[in-house]
């Protein structure tokens, strides 16, 4: 489902070139749940944004659902995102001018799906927000906002779900509820899940983890090594 070949990202800073990622080769199969783990600044979020087509690499190739992202322009990448990809972000990223249901409807509306509203309703019921459909994000708690974001992520019938620290802004209990919901939905929809986190318990629930350290993948991660790295 996802494949990268010799992926690298460098940026120009005032102190010269900075390598964020280097020589990344990964392969993620359909319906697999993979955690990308690493310390702050290790490059894990950059990796996620590259394979999700939100950003462009400095070198290497990315294949998403058998299509080469790296050969596309922004127009085509946007189409690919709309077709295959769903997102859940740490900061929820809901449009605060839209109600919960309008936020969830948005992906389907962008595709011109006439059943956007009924699908959105269904999903909001599924995430337990049937009583909050017409509330604005600012009227919802953090956990509720993230549930809206989850509903929106699945609303586009995405094949791949990218989640960037989905519990980062939530307390432990709410975070756990959200994660349960995320994995449940993931199973139901048969989605491929790519999850960026520094929460090892969360990483453990995935099929496997990819450990990033200073922009490179360290050898197939051993849990102990990972925790040592993250805790240090």
């Amino acid at each position, binding site marked *: 489902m996802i494949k990268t070949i010799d992926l690298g990202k460098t940026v120009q800073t005032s102190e010269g070139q900075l390598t964020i990622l280097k020589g990344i080769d990964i392969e993620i199969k359909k319906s697999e749940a993979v955690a990308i783990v690493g310390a702050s600044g290790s490059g894990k979020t950059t990796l996620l944004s590259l394979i999700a087509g939100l950003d462009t690499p400095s070198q290497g190739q990315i294949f998403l659902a058998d299509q080469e992202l790296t050969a596309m322009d922004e127009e085509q990448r*946007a189409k690919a995102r709309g077709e295959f990809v769903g997102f859940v972000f740490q900061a929820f990223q809901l449009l605060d*001018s839209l109600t919960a249901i309008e936020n969830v409807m948005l992906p389907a509306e962008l595709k011109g799906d006439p059943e956007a509203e009924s699908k959105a309703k269904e999903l909001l019921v599924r995430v337990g927000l049937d009583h909050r459909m017409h509330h604005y994000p600012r009227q919802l708690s953090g956990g509720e906002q993230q549930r809206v974001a989850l509903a929106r992520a699945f609303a586009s019938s995405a094949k791949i779900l990218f989640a960037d620290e989905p519990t980062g802004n939530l307390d432990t209990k709410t975070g756990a509820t959200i994660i349960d919901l995320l994995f449940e939905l993931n199973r139901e929809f048969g989605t491929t899940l790519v999850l960026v986190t520094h929460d090892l318990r969360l990483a453990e629930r995935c099929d496997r983890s990819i450990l990033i350290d200073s922009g490179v993948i360290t050898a197939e991660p051993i849990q102990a090594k990972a925790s040592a790295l993250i805790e240090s």
Partner: protein
Amino acid sequence: MRLGLALKLLWRDWRSGELTLLLVSLLIAVGTVTTITLFVDRLQQALLAESATFLAADRVISSNQPIDPQILTEARTRGLGQAETLTFLSMVFSSERAQFAAVKAVSDTYPLRGELITSDKPFEFGEIVTSGPPPGEIWLESRLLPSLDVQPGDVLDLGVTSFVVSKALIKEPDKGGGFSNTGPRVLMNLSDVPLTEVVQPGSRLTYRYLFSGEKQALDDFQAWVEPRLDENVRMFGVKEGTEGIGNALDRAERFLLLGGLLGVILAGVAIALSAQRYSLRHYDHVAILKTLGATPNGIDGLFITIFVLLGLIGTLLGSGVGYMAQIGISAALQPFIPVELPAPGMRPIWLGLTTGFVCLLSFALPPLLKLRSTEPIRVIRRDIEVGTGSNRLAQLIGVVGTIGLMWWYSEDIELTLMIFSGGLVALLVLSGLAFILLKSGRVLGMQAGSVWRLALAGMQRRGQENTMQILVFGLAIMLLLILFLVRTSLIEDWQAQIPVDAPNHFAMNISPEDVEPIRNLLVENDIRSQPLYPMISGRISKVNGEVAKEREERETQTDDQEERGPRATSNRNLTYAGEIPDDNLITSGEWWAADYVGPALVSLEKDLAARNGLKVGDALEFTIQGRQLDAKVSSIRSVAWDNMQPNFYIIFSPAALEDYPSTFMTSFHLERENKIFLNGLLREFPTMTVIEVDAIIEQIKTIITQVTMAIELVLGLILISGALVLLASIQASMDERFKQHAILRTLGAGRRLVMGSLVIEFCVLGLFAGVLAAIGAEITVYGLEEQIFELDYEPNPMLWLLGPVIGAVLIGLIGTIATLKVVRTPPTIVLRGLN
């Protein structure tokens, strides 16, 4: 992208208040432009209509002979209003006395514009009437009554017929300054003329055919008529007909246009600022939409659709608001406007609608198009700058839109380009200066107390936005200053043009032996007069040895540079003088010594010289009364034609024309109540002619008062839209300020500190903007006055005080009031919103 989605997003944006500011700006922009254009249009129409009363018509054909009746038939078919007048000089006789008078015979439809004022007693305001005397009656100008020793009701003889003097004529609309209107007026009915038998073959007659109607119909008619008129017959409207008024009206129109133009720019800036803010607030939205699969083209389509929809709503509502506002303003001002305002036309409304749309597209599109280049990665990393890919295109759209709009609006590419390029240069220079000012502010601030340091540090941290804001403030203040300065010098110029004691009577045909007695009489009666100038008719027959007519034909064929202006070969009134007349300025060469003796020298008026390619040193041969006289051009002069004094195209050195028999002329000032003096003067010197121009001066003064009023009104409207721009600009920086001050307050800064830093920040911004505005205004006013308004530029020292003070006070005040909310909002609310 689909309309449905755009509509939904528009509605959702509106509901959440995101669009309010933009829509309000648009409403204000369209409203202001519509208000100003509608009002100016009505005022212009009114002024033109009012000034049409100077002709008693909208258009006039003036001729020495009756014109082809086919022309009158054509005018009738075209539905134009028509009247006729016939003017001639004749003696009128009472039982005791006789007096030379300028008789005007008018048809029943006269006057087509304006009104006549008559009275039962001479010199008293009586009643307003809209037509001339009926057959069998005549009306006499007030001073004729005592000089003929008659009262209303008495009988006078004109030619072989007797008429009843039924009224004293107090005012007639078209008593213009033309030389045919010499002598006191007798008004009679046109149908009575044949009975008098005074009009014989060879009589000096002036036929005037008056027309009235819609402008378009008149223009069409004029285009049809002109090829059918003889060479020496003219058709003209009020502007060509009366020089002084035409000039005032032209300048006033230009000013009103300028006001409107500046209004458009201000409105555009307001829209641009709100659109900028809208875009800024939507970068995150777009990033999210993009992660959800919206393509860059899709984003463009979506937001353009939203804006077009918004534009439709905004412009329609705006023009409605403008229409209502204009009705309100007109109603409120009606008592102060000395003219009746005609109903507004459709063009201004159309103009307002289009203006709104073009403004929206050219000012709002640039920030809007930037939305497409929002990187979707922004959802993860907020610090990602929004790309500048489409910036150049966006700027191009803005530039083309602005120029196009200004051009369309003013129908004057010269004015447009001047204002635009002036603005552009000012903008470039000013942004550099603004940046330096900000930097220096920071250095000063470091040595100041904490409130100051906070304010100045804040200003500098947001250096780019503040440079922008100073520019916008500066631009708004600059436009206001420009308008104010141009208005002031226009009005001063007009007032200087017709000083209180300007000569209002011309005396001509004075024989040489009467020169001394008349001069003495004027002095004895304490009447201020100009010197007596000799007047000899003559023309230029050769230029540098070449026959002038041939030279003229050759020149008109070969060069097309100066098509307008007086021709050298026409017969002109020549004079000679030792001293240069008042208000004449030598532009090249030298004026001769007052006691100059020697070969004849001439001084030429500059338009005459330019039109005919004459320069200092040219040898001219004149034909005067059948004799030839050689003279050398020694100087070129500019002449203030509208100063109501004897003015000459060609002046000879003293003694050059002494051998030629001549008459003399002068001008003097006579108050209305002293007009009886004319009777004595004319009785004593019956051969001289007095032309009374006091009526026309009175009328010019009225027009100037009205135009001044119009200009001040427009200035007021622009002032309001300027204030709105300032508000929009402050609104645009609101989010940033909320954030900054919320953080400061959570860190323990008191309200006083936050408030103080806000006040200082705005005052300093205003001060800087004021300095820039003063620089920009001085430069632009120089260009405008020299090039467009043809006024003499003088530096404006007041400006350098006014600009910074206005800036600091105005922006300090508006800014502080507008941001009070920042201080009042509890920081928790702001910080929660920031998340």
